[in-house]
């Protein structure tokens, strides 16, 4: 996507990855040398369930155009059920995002296991494309609440 001035929009995307599955998949994507967009930043957490609403909303206010949260497949969470909780919290947050005029599509929850290096690269690539379509985050740098 290009904006009116013809400058290519490079989205800033943050990925919160669970240590046990998706972070390992990201490592595998790395050692397999799959190309990934430089605009994507990985932040490691122990489990997808660690991600709370404050962290996500603040990340949007701080200017992220998209956030990917990725963890173990349902049933595979290293801590039993964390990813189920993550999923539930997400459903709620997506509603909150609407009220903030933030397209819920800017938030994606994906399950990527440690052997899915290729899929990780695909998920990140596709999400980046989607965010490019959506354009810049409209609430970037608005004051927090």
């Amino acid at each position, binding site marked *: 996507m290009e904006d009116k001035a013809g400058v290519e929009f490079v989205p800033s995307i943050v990925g919160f990855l669970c240590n046990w599955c998706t972070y390992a998949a990201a490592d595998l994507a790395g050692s*397999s040398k799959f190309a990934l967009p430089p605009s994507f930043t990985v932040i490691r957490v122990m489990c997808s369930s660690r991600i709370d609403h404050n962290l996500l909303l603040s990340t949007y206010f701080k200017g992220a155009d998209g956030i990917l949260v990725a963890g173990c497949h349902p049933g*595979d969470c290293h801590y039993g059920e964390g990813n189920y909780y993550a999923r539930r919290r997400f459903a709620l947050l997506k509603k909150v995002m609407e009220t903030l005029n933030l397209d819920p599509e800017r938030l994606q929850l994906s399950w990527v296991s440690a052997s899915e290096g290729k899929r990780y690269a695909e998920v990140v690539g596709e999400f980046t494309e989607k965010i490019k379509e959506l354009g810049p985050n409209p609430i970037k740098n608005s004051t927090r609440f």
Partner: protein
Amino acid sequence: MSQTGNVLVIGAGIAGMKASLMLAGASNKVYLVEKLPIIGGKVIKNEESFPNLECSTCMVAPIQQDVLQNPNIETLTYSIVEKIEGKLGDFSVVIRKKARYVSLTDCIGCGMCYEPCPVSLKNEWEENLIDRKAIYVPCSGSLPNVPVIDSEHCLKLNGKEECNLCVESCAFEAINLDDSDEVMEIKVGAVILAAGSSTFDLSSLPNLGYSTLPGVYAPMEFERLFASNGPTLGEITLRESEKIPESVAVIHCAGRKEQKYCSAVCCMYSFKFARFLKHKIPSASVFNIYSDVCVPGKNYQSFYKSVEGTDTEMLYTSSIDEVQVSENGPGLKVTYSDASGSMTELNVDMVILAAALVPDDDAAELAEIAGVDLDSRGFIATVQDGSGSMETSREGVFVAGTAEGPKDIQNSVIQAESAAGQVMDIVTAEVSGS
């Protein structure tokens, strides 16, 4: 005061790794000997394991890392045990560390050396479904992530050419073509044999067409075909035709009659395959041809019920040993006798054979080196006192996992922990007794 000893564990599959970690946790010094250049065993070949279809890498990689990083475990990959002498509490063991030609401490696993290597041959670890170089790691994500040079095929090492390309490509000076085998001698108090098992040689069953018909697959081949870090990056395509199969028959009990036992895991992995197939190729028709469904224990039948009728059609045959697979144009024809005994034909693109678990090729050799008895089927025998003790015919030598007989991951882990528990129990007894 501290009740510790040295223990030798042979085989770094799930059983060997779990036993090692448990022993190391109690401050025992563990020597973990693995014949392959990598640890993990068979489980890491499966993308997902039944019954929950949990990602195997996610499940096993942290265990592999724990093993490699544990200060009490000395992991000796690409090594074999040559001699075990002595008795409980005082074994002398001779281990041959085969020349790897790549330094485990200097190599960082960047993979720059594979590309230049001019040699290309089949990758056995990938069930020969893809090629590898003479310098290689078995698969991406290998642990330790350090290649090995296959000295038989390396042009320099087999004396065919003055090749030095890998050495030149390595920025870390990690490759040393003058490396040689190293023999080490250690003292241990007890031994655990966890060398795993193999699968039935399907080419000995001509009626099933394996190795003559390209559309017929062994179960491990299918596991790799499905694996997203495998030869096709997880795409299920048929060899030669490269076609995506639209109909698949999984034939149960291949080798059960010959081996005279039921392997207890084949039904479950067959159902797992049905789920895999439907997941990747939703339009495919999948059939399981079976005579008994063996889904023992509290966790398995519900998985079977969830695939039965949805992911696969279950076709009962009154005679599983007499199923025939033959060529049928570009596809395959499966002939079997149905419930009423009449011959029925089924046309499919792909056949997967649920092969029995059998003793590893070198089980007999290992038993000889370890001085232990085999059972009538060629697995390592336990004392058979009815208690499920993991001790073998030689005092101080234990067995665990599929080296003892076919079983699933759960029971392999139980046996590993049970054997480690027994070792710790005798180590404690030895110390407090002396």
